[in-house]
């Protein structure tokens, strides 16, 4: 198993370099360093000298990927790409183009992100699993049929509708909680309820339907018939046998997104004005702050790879047939 993990970590390095390169190229196809400087300096003070000065301060005065004037290896190392990317692998995110410490920002802003993402995940999971088990218990009846119709309807509605509808209904009409904003400590709770509820509700359609499919597939399997033939009651069959097996894809589906919870949700956070990492990323894109975008994309890929490795490990814990070689 340790050899397997080591191999996976080694495989991750070229992937991360690739992702980095891709982000880099995509970003600089749209913007040149000059554009960035102009954007940051504002319209009034832009002189060619100021642009050069801005670029030099932040290390954007080098060539992008290949330095013709360099010697040997320096042709590749003395470039924006190399200089800016290498530090990422030490998890040193540097300063943003507007001069803030990105590492510090991340450590501050991940907590609001987690405060929304974790409850949304847990409540959603519990709700969806319960719902799916209920529908499967009533399979081939009208309960299941209309339940499925409802789920498909919920799934077909755009996520934005849930956000705007939720804000309108709960915040504007009922005046239960504020529409958006954030506070520190326990006071944050009243700002969190609405995004969490919206997040859970918007996930019921797809989540419930997916879990229902998983349970239904298991219920039709031969070993379930064997369990019934032993004389087990329906509850024992469902929880002792069906649930145990359906848990494997459910659990691993959850484990893979666990690390990504840190990243927060781009849409929910910006709509509800939550100062998490999601809105941080959106803002950075709008301000064309390459340092932050790159750091967040890098972090996202690292966490995703971590999620995949954790998934593999979790398979070995829940499924006796799987061993990592």
């Amino acid at each position, binding site marked *: 198993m340790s*050899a397997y993990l*080591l*191999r996976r970590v080694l495989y991750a390095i070229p992937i991360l370099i690739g992702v980095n390169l891709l982000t880099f190229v995509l970003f600089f196809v749209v913007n040149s360093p000059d554009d960035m400087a102009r954007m940051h300096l504002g319209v009034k003070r832009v002189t060619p000298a100021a642009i050069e000065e801005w670029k030099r301060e932040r290390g954007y005065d080098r060539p992008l990927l290949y330095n013709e004037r360099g010697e040997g290896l320096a042709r590749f190392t003395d470039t924006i790409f190399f200089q800016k990317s290498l530090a990422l692998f030490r998890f040193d995110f540097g300063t943003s183009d507007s001069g803030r410490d990105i590492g510090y920002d991340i450590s501050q802003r991940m907590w609001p992100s987690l405060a929304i993402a974790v409850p949304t995940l847990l409540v959603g999971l519990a709700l969806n699993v319960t719902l799916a088990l209920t529908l499967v218990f009533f*399979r*081939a009846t009208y309960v299941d049929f209309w339940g499925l119709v409802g789920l498909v309807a919920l799934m077909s509605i755009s996520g934005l509708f849930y956000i705007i509808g939720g804000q309108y209904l709960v915040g504007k009409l009922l005046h239960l909680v504020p529409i958006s904003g954030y506070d520190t400590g326990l006071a944050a709770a009243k700002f969190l309820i609405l995004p969490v509820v919206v997040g859970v509700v918007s996930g019921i359609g797809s989540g419930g339907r997916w879990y229902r499919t998983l349970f239904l597939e298991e219920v039709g*399997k*031969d*070993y379930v*018939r*064997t*369990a*019934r*033939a*032993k*004389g*087990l*009651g329906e509850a024992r069959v469902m929880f*002792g*046998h069906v649930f*145990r*097996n359906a848990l*494997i894809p459910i659990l691993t589906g959850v484990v893979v997104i666990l690390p990504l919870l840190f990243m927060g949700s781009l849409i929910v956070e910006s709509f509800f004005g939550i100062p998490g990492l999601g809105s941080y990323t959106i803002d950075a894109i709008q301000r064309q702050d390459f340092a932050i975008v790159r750091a967040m994309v890098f972090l996202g890929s690292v966490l995703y790879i971590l999620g995949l490795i954790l998934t593999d490990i979790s398979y070995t814990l*829940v*499924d*006796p*047939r799987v061993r990592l*070689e």
Partner: protein
Amino acid sequence: MTAPALVVRDLSVSVGGSRVVDGVDLEVAAGETFALLGESGCGKSMTALALMRLLPPGGRVRSGSVRLDGEELLDLPEYAMRGVRGGRLGMIFQEPQTSLNPVLRVGDQIAEAARLHDPAADPRRRAVELLAAVGIPDPERRVREFPHQLSGGMKQRVMIAMALAGRPRLLIADEPTTALDVTIQAQVLDLLADLRRETGMAMMLITHDLGVVAESAGRLAIMYAGQILESAPVGAFFAAPAHPYGRMLLAALPTGERRGGHLAAIEGRVPSPDEALQGCRFAPRCPQAEARCHRQPPDWHPVGPGHRVRCHLWAQGGHGAHVDVPVAKGPGAEEGAAAPLLETQGLQVHFPIRKGLLKRVVGRVRAVDGIDLHLDAGRTLALVGESGCGKTTCGKALLQLIRPTGGRVLYRGRDLAALSGRALRPFRRELQIVFQDPFAAMNPRMLVGDIVAEGLVAQGLAKDRAERRARVAELLERVGIAPEAAARYPHEFSGGQRQRICIARALAVEPRLIVCDEPTSALDVSVQAQILNLLHDLQTGLGLAYLFITHDISVVAYLAHEVAVMYLGRIVERGRVEAVLAAPLHPYTRALLSAVPEPDPASRRQRIHLEGDMPSPADPPGGCHFHPRCPEADARCAREYPPLRTLSSGRVVACHHVPDG
């Protein structure tokens, strides 16, 4: 007959509106084995599930009564039925692979049943005892294992142990050995017979296999399209089956005596359960049907003691009842032609096993390990062996579908293994393959006509559309399918018809050799006979050579000229079919043949018991591969692999202890 353990009267079951079981009556006495025989879709499994009250969603019992020891089961409330299910009424299923819960330890799965039905005993101890009772070595260790760590035969033993946990009065075994190899099947059937004798339980054996019935049952009932057509003591039935369907089933079995002739295939197909049939259900396929057969359902008529039949022919004592079974002797098998069409020399297919950080090769699976075969034009060579012996890999390696890792494959003198993909193209035309599962072998989204024409197009054999269409129609007709089928999709056809279409596809490119990989093992007996007849006719008509890969000895006896027996990637015995089957020399061949159930209760012989399972080809035992299971092994066998020797009779055998002469 002693007091019946189970009495079923007038049981009718419908699933989704169609009547899959229609007025079934049967009785099973305590301590006897009663066989319910029928082809797929006849309703035998549904009958069993109805007894257990485990019908699939949409299924329900419409009428009838099921009494177990006098107690009516159909009236019991569900909670009381749960006490019966897995208790006095146990059931085991066809697929041991999928019938155990993959994430639970086998001990826990058995203990679960013991806890329900035997609360006094310690369930863990019971699990160990039961595993020991079903002959699993080292039960203390095995209870802690997961199903995937056990072989197929062991899993079926675990299923049996689970059913025994409730000390059943009646054990329903639904095709318990169909998914197993013959030598393992023999072990499981023996185990069931022993357990029945020890515990006095009754057994209801549901099967399609006449051989299994003849070897292990006392009485049988034949089911067809939801009804029982004949019920009889096993001896009386095999001596003189009364119902035309029963007679035709027996006549459809391939055997050595029927070589060179046609098998009595039953034309047509089983009616689907939602077809409304007025008269006898078998009338559309019965060669002796009369006018009244189509109008009026036949009554039960007595034939002999305990033997009755549902057929109009027996209304007057049954003297007119006899079935013409055409066994026309075709042209006999002519002697070997001149030059061999195909020859392999030391054919090897090894798969690397990779492990560790750098995926180094740490070993190899010797799937095919040095095989010499020899096939003449227009002849059939059967490659026989149990699952995992490498026979399918060998077939694919011949066609270069898997590239051999060593040895030569000489086709008309050219070494195919040495040819590149492009140079192989012309040979692809002459060598074709037909697979076991005809449905998986066809693209479900392609029309049958296009499937058949694929090869024509790839090989540039048809100049234009019209010619292609004419050729497809001709091919379909040749395999007995109406040419209109070309415009339909594969799912509209039955298994047997699909296999015909696959054969037509192979024939399209005018091959000289067809590798048939278990082409009939997914089919019912009557349909198997149709396909075997077709293959036989094609061989005599077109001079095709077949490499017939199979585990079914009766098919070998009927169709093949030469046979090669494989064990763990190597040939252990090779020779002419009549000679090998009549007097097998290698201990493995002998055991294999003795394990095959004969459809003739008069010839119940002593089986040669093989202990254990076939070892893994990744790690074959040293010395003779067969020595851990061989009844005749000695010290030398554990040391040296016996060389293949050609005896003076021409037989080729790899065994130290076979004398020449």
